[in-house]
């Protein structure tokens, strides 16, 4: 029973996190949501008796992918809707 509730909860959370990561305009939060997806995934892998995959997902998905995304956001723009940012760039180029 616990097992069943746990899995259902994790699955629901995962759907919510993926919707959030696509819908959120702030890319930093969206990236965090993908990190949460990976975290949930690694728990799910553990429950599905795949410890090797869980370890890999935890290390790659949660840590490395997220950090690379964050560095990229840091180097580019944070908001998906970037109107004011763009104006600044254009004036800087001119």
């Amino acid at each position, binding site marked *: 029973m616990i097992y069943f509730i746990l899995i259902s909860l994790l699955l629901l959370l995962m759907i919510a996190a993926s919707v959030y990561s696509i819908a959120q305009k702030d890319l930093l939060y969206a990236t965090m949501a993908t990190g949460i997806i990976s975290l949930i995934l690694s728990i799910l892998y553990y429950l599905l008796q795949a410890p090797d995959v869980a*370890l890999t997902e935890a290390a790659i998905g949660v840590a490395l992918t997220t950090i690379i995304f964050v560095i990229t956001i840091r180097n580019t723009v944070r908001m998906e809707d970037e109107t004011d940012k763009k104006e600044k760039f254009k004036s800087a180029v001119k």
Partner: protein
Amino acid sequence: MKKVLVILLLATMGYYIAGSYFDIGFGQPHFVQGVKPVKDIYLAKTVKPLTVSNAVTSIVVNFRGFDTLGEVTVLFLAVTVLGSLLYKKRHAVGERSVLFSASSIVTSGSKLLFPAIILLGAYVFIHGHLSPGGGFQGGVIIASGFLLMLLAYENYSVSHTALSVVESLAGITFAGVGLLGFMHGGTFLQNFLPVGVLNNLFSGGVIPIIYIAVGFKVGAELTGVIYTVLHEKGQSNG
């Protein structure tokens, strides 16, 4: 308009993907009647003659070791491509994008944690054939140790030469062990060492050797990826 089309397309796709996998069924034997799946052979042969405890390791490194060689190459190529994409002339290199200025707690904490993380990574890939984990996981853990140091210390740098030497040597070890197997037994990546006793550290023939090489290689490659991206400074965030 475009959104409606996309949703329609996705609905069709989802119907077929989900329909197929529902047909396959979850958590029950799904192989067609009269088929002898290879996984039974894998599980049986993992214990004897390979004497490896972790079946995933035996598949990744031995039965399907060729895939792993290709996979390591993919990472190697990713580092190469990243370097080519973000290449700048010498004078521009050296600037680092700083995610945050680290406090003294973070810096001293990282210094304490760093050896422990490296040790954990090494443990994970040395025991890859006995317990969950292996070359990839251990390599990633080592890379995350370097990531911690890179984030904590603004001027922490990893020698690029050292990284590529480690990477190349590990890759050559992997391919070289494969070729040794070729010379010894006639097929690439064949085991040519005594297999030992199950659940001992020294068991499984060449499998631990290859997995340790993979661990070093993945660690060096991922550190290279992080290092390259971290040294990329955007134009406007100057």
